[in-house]
């Protein structure tokens, strides 16, 4: 059971604004990836049994977060996907993020993240490969069987064989049942007893988290809506319904296979307008960097 380590075809050839927004979310993933290793350092002094539960819980939570972000981003895009589903998944992501902030994991996340920032390449590929890498490292429990991305249809994500008749598994032990059971127990039993020093940092990082989350969803808004955007552009698109650029269309629209839609039009327009529109995208990135600096307290 290993995830395919190639980028799904739908990730290739994105318009730049979309790539930027995915990078924000992906950076969040990357940051969380590092949290697994760092968390262990703090649990040395805690009782081993509770430590195991906490680690298990945090790992499950991490997997749920990854799963949710992948679901949000990889939608097959011939038809507008279900908004209810997208909203529920987004709420789950927020919920996890809030919890991670409160128990201090988010603080660790941002610290780990501050050093590196691969903002220039698609990190989704790395996330897809992450699981297999970590499995080799710590042989953690496998929460997925196989994720097939051949036609980028989420429905082809398979769980353990018993649960779905579309089984593509290779007979690996189905731990899903146990994990699910542990999941709910872990919610009840989990220990959020990180050291006190993290609590006050936690508040600061929560502010940062909210802003970052806002950035993640905010950058989904097209350049048109950013403050100080090119007035010529605005005039050009004044007749267009602004709701088009709203989160709903972006959230549901995220992985359009590149068609000649208005997004492409916008790109071809802005390229002739020079750096103006690019700068608003850059502004968003700069703002994020700025916020990260605040969080890290440099």
């Amino acid at each position: 059971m290993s995830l395919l380590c190639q980028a799904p075809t739908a990730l290739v050839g994105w318009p730049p604004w979309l790539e930027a927004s995915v990078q924000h979310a992906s950076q969040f993933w990357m940051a969380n990836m590092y949290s697994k290793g760092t968390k262990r350092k703090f649990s040395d002094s805690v009782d081993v049994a509770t430590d195991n539960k906490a680690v298990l819980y945090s790992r499950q939570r991490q997997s749920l977060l990854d799963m949710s972000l992948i679901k949000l981003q990889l939608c097959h895009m011939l038809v507008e996907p279900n908004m209810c589903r997208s909203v529920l998944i987004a709420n789950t992501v927020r919920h996890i993020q809030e919890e991670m902030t409160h128990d201090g994991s988010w603080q660790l996340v941002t610290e780990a993240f501050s050093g590196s920032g691969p903002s220039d390449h698609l990190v989704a590929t790395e996330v897809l490969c992450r699981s297999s890498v970590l499995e080799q490292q710590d042989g953690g429990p496998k929460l997925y069987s196989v994720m097939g991305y051949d036609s980028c249809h989420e429905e082809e994500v398979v769980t353990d064989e018993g649960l779905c008749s579309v089984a593509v598994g290779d007979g690996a032990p189905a731990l899903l049942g146990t994990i699910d059971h542990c999941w709910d127990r872990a919610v009840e039993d989990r220990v959020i007893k990180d050291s006190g020093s993290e609590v006050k940092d936690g508040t600061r990082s929560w502010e940062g988290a909210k802003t970052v989350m806002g950035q993640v969803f905010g950058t989904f808004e097209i350049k048109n809506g950013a403050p100080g955007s090119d007035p010529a552009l605005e005039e050009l698109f004044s007749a267009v319904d602004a709701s088009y650029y709203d989160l709903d269309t972006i959230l549901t629209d995220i992985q359009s296979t590149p068609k000649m839609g208005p997004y492409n039009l916008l790109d071809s327009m802005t390229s002739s307008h020079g750096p103006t529109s690019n700068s608003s995208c850059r502004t968003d990135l700069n703002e994020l960097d700025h916020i990260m600096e605040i969080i890290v307290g440099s």
Partner: protein
Amino acid sequence: MAGVAGGNDFQWCFSQVKGAIDEDVAEADIISTVEFNHSGELLATGDKGGRVVIFQHEQECKNRPHLRGEYNVYSTFQSHEPEFDYLKSLEIEEKINKIRWLPQQNSAHFLLSTNDKTIKLWKIGERDKRAEGYNLKDEDGRLRDPFRITSLRVPVLMPMDLMVEASPRRVFANAHTYHINSISVNSDHQTYLSADDLRINLWHLEITDRSFNIVDIKPANMEELTEVITAAECHPNQCNVFVYSSSKGTIRLCDMRTAALCDRHTKFFEEPEDPSSRSFFSEIISSISDVKFSHSGRYMMTRDYLSVKVWDLNMENRPVETYQVHEYLRSKLCSLYENDCIFDKFECCWNGSDSAIMTGSYNNFFRMFDRNTRKDITLEASRESSKPRATLKPRKVSTGGKRKKDEISVDSLDFNKKILHTAWHPKENVIAVAATNNLYIFQDKIN
């Protein structure tokens, strides 16, 4: 009306099944909505291919009165075609999301059918006579030379083979930015409402070029979007009252007399969350997939992922009855989240006397609950138990370690076989159950 389960001599038996037997199911044949009309004489189904098929209940045979009549195809028509939204570069599916019948006012039947964006009013009429003996044209339709006509005659109506014609009478388009999930005909028989993810519109059946927006929950800043409308329905008696449910498990009852825009609810129904069962999936499984008023108008029923709840309209803080549909899935929520089954939208329905409710589950199981006796039963819609008038055997899912004979374990359930759409005849114990591309009709045994 008799109860659903146990009960003296009361049993459900197979009546008919419609649809292909093939293992390979064509996507377009998947049934997406099922609805009886107000008399129960007609049964309409809509599918993913945009087609509507209407079945009619045949009169019982006079020779064999103990056999209830069957439902046979009455009319088939293409209601919606796939469209392309050029602005967003996205397809608009032709899948029929809902069908609602209008109360019958003359010999013709009217229904509303909707896909994600457009609602259509269809007239289904019968023609069994043809006029013959026109003066100006021949029997085969060719025009006659007026100078050749030497005498006049009165055309005579001659019987012909029954022809059922479906024609679109109104098209209500361009009023919804988001996907329509519900339509509901008002008790005034003049208006109806349509609901999408964020807005509800009120239409007049005669007017297609405008509609009133009566609910709008779209936030000014879409980043703050956390809740969507999942279903809406008009009250069966009070034409000023309607309800809508949300993805957060709440139901709002609104009175259209209070304001033009009913953003402020009159009543707010929500059950406080049980803190002991809180998990990351709590919100998702609390999302309401269907809301239905009882025929009496005193109660309403909501379906969330694991349960069905009956609410008294006079009590907002909790439901009066809760029925667990498939509680054994609670420990599988993570897997069901991964394979997206957790987002399946199950519907629910009342029987004619409001004494029983029915809803679907996985593995082609469906459940019925008797509100009076508190008994419940699980039945399966399968080809194996499809012998004429064969009694349906109750099914059971084993939850513990030991699996008894005839029980099925949770891990063996087929999550691709889901029963999302069911309908109960308004007057009799006849039910229609949509299992993917097959429509099963069951009825009670007449002894």
